[in-house]
């Protein structure tokens, strides 16, 4: 097997991440508009929003330190690297060997940590409030996330994402209750991690209710563009991670170039379905009271633990 092919797929996957993530967000917004009986701004609106922000000047607070200026690049970079690790198109990519799923969680944690610091850095009440809320969510969501992932790892006996995909997609098909529990937990965590309803409202303008938005209120111009773009990529990656962990059928095996077109079509199909699922949740639910989050993420943790237990008991 030559080296050029995996590298080319990696580059392709990276490009897909960069450009498909805003389109996926556009798709979610479009569906949401339709569900609410409105006409939508189109699939490409998030792209246009990002481009607009890149053209704008950055307005920096006088007391902004290097953390504030550095964070957008770090968040964008860490999210992009995470995109190289997750098998979106194919397993056995060069970057996937560098990080397993625990390192992947750590990548998201780093960007969240710095976003929270940047929120505090400016010293506004909203930034601090957002950071405090974000860390509250993180402290509850991350353990649940790891538990859900360990369940999948147990099934495949590995923490490498490529291996996990291989075992589930190319192994014998078994209905596993442990994975069903882990999937439930994963969906709840995804809603919390990506700031969707019922945890956070991505469309709100009410500063007092914001979580993620409150931290980045002071960002503008290219900084905001990078953070927004990274946020879109994060939603895309969590969806891709869910697909890779629970519905990996269709992800190309290492070196299987002929299968790539099929993979792409299947990916598109899965993303469309994921968007519909997300919008059904977001349209049907109101945002929950902030202190209900502990119950919400607690139940995610519970589901993940049940997944682990049922693996040991049943499988």
């Amino acid at each position, binding site marked *: 097997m030559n080296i050029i092919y995996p590298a080319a797929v990696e580059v392709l996957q990276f490009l897909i991440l960069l450009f498909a993530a805003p389109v996926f967000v556009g798709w979610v917004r479009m569906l*949401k508009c339709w*569900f*609410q*009986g*409105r006409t939508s701004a189109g699939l490409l609106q998030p792209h246009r929003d990002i481009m607009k922000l890149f053209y704008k000047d950055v307005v920096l607070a006088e007391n902004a330190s290097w953390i504030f200026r550095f964070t957008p690049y770090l968040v964008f970079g860490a999210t992009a690297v995470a995109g190289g690790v997750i098998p979106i198109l194919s397993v056995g990519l060069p970057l996937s060997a560098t990080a397993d799923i625990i390192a992947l969680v750590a990548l998201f944690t780093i960007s969240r940590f710095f976003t929270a610091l940047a929120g505090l850095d400016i010293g506004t*009440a*909203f930034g*601090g*409030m957002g950071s*405090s809320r974000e860390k509250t969510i993180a402290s509850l969501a991350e353990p649940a996330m790891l538990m859900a992932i360990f369940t999948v790892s147990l099934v495949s006996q590995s923490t490498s994402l490529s291996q996990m995909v291989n075992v589930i997609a190319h192994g014998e098909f078994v209905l596993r209750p442990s994975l069903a529990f882990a999937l439930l937990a994963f969906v709840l965590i995804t809603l919390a991690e990506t700031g969707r*309803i*019922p945890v956070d*409202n991505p*469309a*709100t*303008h*009410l*500063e*007092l*209710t914001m979580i993620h938005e409150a931290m980045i209120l002071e960002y503008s111009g290219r900084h905001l563009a990078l953070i927004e773009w990274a946020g879109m990529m994060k939603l895309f990656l969590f969806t891709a991670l869910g697909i890779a962990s629970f519905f990996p059928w269709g992800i190309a095996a290492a070196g299987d170039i002929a299968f790539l077109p099929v993979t792409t079509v299947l990916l598109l199909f899965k993303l469309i379905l994921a968007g519909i699922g997300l919008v059904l949740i977001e*349209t*049907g*639910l*109101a*945002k*929950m*009271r*902030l*202190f*209900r989050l502990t119950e919400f993420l607690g139940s995610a943790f519970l589901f993940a633990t049940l997944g682990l237990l049922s693996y040991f008991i049943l499988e």
Partner: protein
Amino acid sequence: MSTLKESFTSKLGTDARQDGNQYPASVTVFHVPRERFIEAARAMKTSDARLVAEWATDETLFGRGFDILACFAKGPEYLIVKTEAPVEDPAFPTLTKKFVAAYRFERQIRSLMGVIPAGHPDPRHWIKHEDWPEDAWPLRKSFDPSKPIPRVNGEYNFIKAEGEGVYEIPVGPVHAGIIEPGHFRFQAVGEDILNLEEKLGYVHKGIEKRFEALSWTEGVKLSGRVSGDTTVAHALAYCRAIEAMTGCNPPDRALWLRALMLERERIANHLGDIGAICNDAAFAFLLYQLSRLREVILRTNDRLFGHRFMMDRVIPGGVANDITPDGVKEILSELDSLSGEFERLIVIYDENPSLEDRVRDTGILTPGDAKELGVVGFVARASSQSLDCRILSPFPPYDRIIPRMAVLQTGDVHARAWVRIEEVRESIRIIREMLNTLPEGKISVRFDPPPADRAGFAVVEGWRGEIVYWVQSGPRGEINRCMVRDPSSVNWLAVEQAIHGNIVPDFPLCNKSFNQSYSGHDL
């Protein structure tokens, strides 16, 4: 049952002198000496009356000092107590210790008229901000509004909370959404709110002062712009006050059309509000659907009355627009489709547990607090106060077409939303009844300006609640003073009380359930 008037005369005896220049005659005005003003308030408090409004007038043109007026109400009865303060000693005893609602009225009197409420617990200015000179009193006759005012340095001291982990959140005056400006200062520990203090006055436009430079017929246009979303009710209250002064009786058809517009305004605003409450709980579906229904109403308004909000359609002596039989049919058929769609959406509101979890038990205004603060409108009715001017002090056609009052006990966000829902249903019902009994005839009569030295008073139940106008003619028959009391003037106090025990991220939802007017409050 003894009326306010009887209990007043029995308590104050011969010191209470009745005023004959006040119209309509059903509203009594008593003059009392300054030292017995507080006693008068006590008598009102023991009779279980609420303070409707308190204001001052500059009587320079009559060759006197200042008058301080306080309006009380109990059930259908309104009573005004009036006392005088000479120019050399512009002060009066504060009523704040008897009536909490006087708190801001008196700060406002001090700020804008320069009459000191002696013994008032809070010396800070209200409406007039700290960058105004201390001696600039815009409501005094000696104040020239055309001259620029020098800017001074000043500081507004918010109530501070101290302790470990206590922090302050300043919000506004400019907000991220398209809403009016107002400043909110939170003292919080973690997410728990210790105290909320409002600072308003950012949309002070000098409306009360401006009235004094306008003719009687121009005044109605200004009153229609006090608060844009309540244009019909404000214009109606103004017209009723000055019509009372002159004994002008608009024809029946005009009265019916006024009520029709008033109810359409109520429906449109309630629809928008119910949707906005849901949107603040991130349930955007209802916002868009209810906004669509609201838009249907507004477009029909535009077609039938020539303006989406029916601005300037109520004029002294009647209304500016008639509707044709086709227009009547159009409204009736629109109501049929509207009420069908509305009921379907309300089922969604009522049956969504995640939404219910947010609106129930959030932002509770207890019935006790509501009574103490003297709140009005749907805010009062959601906290078990049976107040609705359409029912308590009706004017035609409400004396024949009587709405049912929706009163709830819980006083939470849900109660305020549900009172609105019931009122939309009720308004739809009474509009149908009005159109079925719409009298024929003229839509306006000639309005002659009132004679000198008279005062007119009117209350109208706008969609936010009781709107009060008190208009006084000067020695040359011009407008000497026009006191406007939007429901927001008292209801804003309730927001501060309702927020106790809530968490910071629930404030926008609570605030939206009140949805008080900044413009109507700041004037």
